[in-house]
């Protein structure tokens, strides 16, 4: 088993996942079996996947294989290179934690039958892995579409709620529009040769125009899946609607498949790189990041908050990719590798901490039945495990040292600081603005995350029933603990991750950073040179911990004052209650005020003389009103017109068919000539 080729190992895992899904069908309503046996087995699959990926990244080889599946004469071409392997690693490590959590999470009698969930869940995992293996457009599209479909079914697991059905529909719609663009992109890439294998696309020399067309199509198609502005609207609807492990999988892993796709097309399949592609990615990525984080800060529902935070992170990933493309187009490959490394590091880091945060919301949801931030609070007293694990997640998500989010942000900022070497003065001037936007995004992410953690876990419970909340179960704890552990590890040992990323950037831009980065010892991250910049997370952690411990010990040794408990100071008010804390709306109020032009706000303020004052504010996306509603109305208008064709009389329909036949027969001879 262990000396199998990596690609075979991966295929075995995919096969095992599919088999587990089918077994789920057989045990449709046997909840205990599905939850306690099938899901943990699936988790082991994730671990094997990660193992295979690491082994391939270590060997630096490329495995290929042909599977004669599907249509005759059209086999699946499969290929496992470093880029695929890295994303397989992401799937593997994240899905291990998520599957274990799911084993404890799904409850009997909720929405879809457990066996069906098991089928959809494991098919979803398998199709994501297959997307990464695909080496021709046919296999890619099959895997891509089944990924979209299975995730659609997972989103609508609670399909009895109309709101969830609507969210699922929106998701499916945008996913398909994106898929069409991807298909067209492959059509351009094969350059009329009729051969849809990626190997053929690699050798085509496209003209600037067609290469740009392919890039824009890929950007649109994969951007729709990732949630780039203005195609992001499905994300804050679909992620909260799905059950938490599924949200974790979608937010943590699935949207990264879009990143993979865009990397594959731009850096692998296309040879030409034009500077404005990078600018497009950079500008749209930054806009998306700032937009996402501002919206995250004003959300009042915990999963929506995290969904918007995912949009922010996707924006950062696109920014890094754009910068890499920009460097690449000017032949500055070392810098391109630096930006790409930042991108890939963040892919892995975000997959872990965002999954972790979504899983904690799942535990909170189960313990309290509430997803509205305004009705939560004080949960650190009742669910300490979940709270402390969530703390790790929010610290990483805020980009704070020594956690994983900081490393990727640090690498990204480093690559921006190198930029003044670009030959175009205009681009050089954009850089300070871009750098500052990234800094602003990171700081705002901190705001949103403090809001999330503070309102959910700190303070006093805002509702009576919260005091009955219970901590997560064993499976859930292990799942979240695994993700938290990796998040910490990723923050502390950046060089070992850089060794995994090294073959990927070597494959894409020809330069790897692992060697210079660890030239000054494995504990010190020096992407270019020691003088230029260095970051030693272990030192860092050691410094903070040592300071904390010494302070603690000294205070305890020198002073013997005791500790008393009493009621908090209420500012002289005779009574105080938990409703006097900031609500989620209140916490977001400064952001709402400062960034007012961003929001579409529906506000109702009470008058001072109201006896029963009522306050409500609903913040919505301007894009929805501005872009989507007009399109929807236009579509409705056109379909109404088209609908007139539908008469209901059979003879009319037959007439349509007849006319069509005549037209085609008329056209055939012209086509011959």
């Amino acid at each position, binding site marked *: 088993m262990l000396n199998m080729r990596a690609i075979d190992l991966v295929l075995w895992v995919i096969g095992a996942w599919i088999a587990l899904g089918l077994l789920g069908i057989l045990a449709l309503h046997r909840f205990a079996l599905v939850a306690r046996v099938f899901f943990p087995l699936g988790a082991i699959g994730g671990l094997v996947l990660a193992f295979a990926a690491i082994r391939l990244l270590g060997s630096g080889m490329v495995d290929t294989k042909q599977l004669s599946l599907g249509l005759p004469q059209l086999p699946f071409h499969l290929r496992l290179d470093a880029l695929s392997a890295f994303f397989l690693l992401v799937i593997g490590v994240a899905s291990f934690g998520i599957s274990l959590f799911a084993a404890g999470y799904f409850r009997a009698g909720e929405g879809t039958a457990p066996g069906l969930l098991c089928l959809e869940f494991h098919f979803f995992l398998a199709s994501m892995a297959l997307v990464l293996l695909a080496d021709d457009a046919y296999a890619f599209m099959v895997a891509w579409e089944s990924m979209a479909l299975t995730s659609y079914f997972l989103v609508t697991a609670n399909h009895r709620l109309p709101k969830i059905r609507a969210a699922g529909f929106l998701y499916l719609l945008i996913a398909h529009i994106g898929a069409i663009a991807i298909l067209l992109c492959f059509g351009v890439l094969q350059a009329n040769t009729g051969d849809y294998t990626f190997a053929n696309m690699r050798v085509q020399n496209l003209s600037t125009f067609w290469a740009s067309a392919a890039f824009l199509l890929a950007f649109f198609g994969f951007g729709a899946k990732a949630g780039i502005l203005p195609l992001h609207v499905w994300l804050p609807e679909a992620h909260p609607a799905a059950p938490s492990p599924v949200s974790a999988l979608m937010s943590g892993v699935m949207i990264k498949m879009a990143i993979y796709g865009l990397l594959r097309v731009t850096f692998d399949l296309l040879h030409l790189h034009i500077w404005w592609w990078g600018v497009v990615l950079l500008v749209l990525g930054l806009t998306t990041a700032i937009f996402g984080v501002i919206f995250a800060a004003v959300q009042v529902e915990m999963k929506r908050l995290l969904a918007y935070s995912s949009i922010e992170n996707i924006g950062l990933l696109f920014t890094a990719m754009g910068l890499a493309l920009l460097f690449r187009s000017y032949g500055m490959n070392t810098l391109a590798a630096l930006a790409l490394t930042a991108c890939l590091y963040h892919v892995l880091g975000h997959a872990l901490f965002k999954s972790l945060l979504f899983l904690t919301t799942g535990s909170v949801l189960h313990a309290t039945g509430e997803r509205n931030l305004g009705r939560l609070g004080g949960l650190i007293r009742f669910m300490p495990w979940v709270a402390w694990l969530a703390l790790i997640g929010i610290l990483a998500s805020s980009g704070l040292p020594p956690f994983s989010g900081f490393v990727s942000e640090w690498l990204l900022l480093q690559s921006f600081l190198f930029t003044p070497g670009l030959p175009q003065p205009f681009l050089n001037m954009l850089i*300070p603005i871009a750098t500052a936007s990234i800094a602003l995004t990171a700081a705002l992410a901190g*705001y949103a995350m403090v809001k999330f953690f503070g309102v959910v876990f*700190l303070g006093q419970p805002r509702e009576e029933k919260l005091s009955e909340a219970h901590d997560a179960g064993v499976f859930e704890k292990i799942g979240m603990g695994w993700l938290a552990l990796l998040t910490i590890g990723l923050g502390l040992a950046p060089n070992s991750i850089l060794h995994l990323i090294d073959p990927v950037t070597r494959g894409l831009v020809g330069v790897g950073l692992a060697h210079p980065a660890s030239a000054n010892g494995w504990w010190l991250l020096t992407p270019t040179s020691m003088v230029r910049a260095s970051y030693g997370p272990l030192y860092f952690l050691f410094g*903070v911990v040592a300071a904390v411990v010494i302070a603690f010990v000294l205070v305890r040794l020198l002073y013997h004052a005791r500790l008393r408990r009493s*009621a908090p100071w209420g500012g002289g008010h005779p009574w105080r209650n938990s409703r006097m804390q900031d609500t989620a709306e*209140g916490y977001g109020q400064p952001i709402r005020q400062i960034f007012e032009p961003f929001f579409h706000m529906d506000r109702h303020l009470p008058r001072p003389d109201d006896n029963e004052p009522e306050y409500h504010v609903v913040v919505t996306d301007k894009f929805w009103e501005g872009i989507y509603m007009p399109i929807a109305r236009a579509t409705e208008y056109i379909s109404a017109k088209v609908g007139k064709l539908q008469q209901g009389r059979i003879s009319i329909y037959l007439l349509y068919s007849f006319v069509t036949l005549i037209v085609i027969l008329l056209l055939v001879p012209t086509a011959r000539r």
Partner: protein
Amino acid sequence: MSRAFSQLISILTPILLAPLLLGWVNQMRAWLSNRRGPGVLQPYRMLHKLFNKDSVMADTASSLFRFAPYAVFGSMLLANAIIPTLSTDLPLASAADAIALVGLFALARIFISLAAMDIGTAFGTLGARREMLVGFLAEPALLTVLFSASLIGQSTALPTIVEAVAHKHFAIYPSLVFAGMAFILVFLAENARVPVDNPATHLELTMIHEAMILEYSGRHLALMEWAASLKLFAYSTLGIALFLPWGIGQKATPSSLLLALPSLALKLALIGIVLALVETFSAKLRIFRVPEFLATAFLLGVIGMLTHILLGA
């Protein structure tokens, strides 16, 4: 040996001198408003008193509340350890560069805000919200200031920046004009100084920092206060390192320390006087003018980076 010694000195100096700097600023403020003032040693007496007192903790406080003062104190201490105060020969500075320094400040801020929200009173959450409001603009502003400097030194490592400005051939950097202005604004906001916050009052309408540590008492409060003075010290020495670096030694030899220490004391005293003057002459801003104030700092930082690239200097 010299390196470890220099590192030790640069940790001990802030711990010991930070309360003195705070006392000096307070004393100057008192003199400027025609009061006699409590003397420059008052913060030490205060810390001593607080450490000896019993700590009274709200019955709703969780373990995070007790942990936070240590975390805040530890981060501030590390922040001081990586800023070149007396010499640029700091082993710990390779662990954390300018970006990580900002991260450290942010880490402390997040812990103090979370601790403030932990009790669940209106004051705590109010303070936390305002602190994060100040933070989300001050943090990127500080980063842009540091980037303006690091573009000059071609490095984000603080010792390298200092050496580039202080020890290479003398040059005037126009971008530092902008960065300096931005830094002063950030300095005032981050250390809860007058135009943004007033450390001397407990008025609900205006307080930020005091609202957050309202529930702390005894040794926890002492750590928080000490951490605040360490933060003031860190910002002052950072300002010195970026804008007035002359006198900071390269190696931690006794002779260079002898030269560096008085120059550091002189510069800190000067900063204290300027700070007290600014605080005396300016009026407290309304809380909704604060974002504007900080946005100005942020944009000045951006313009600083721009001028560097544009003027090529």
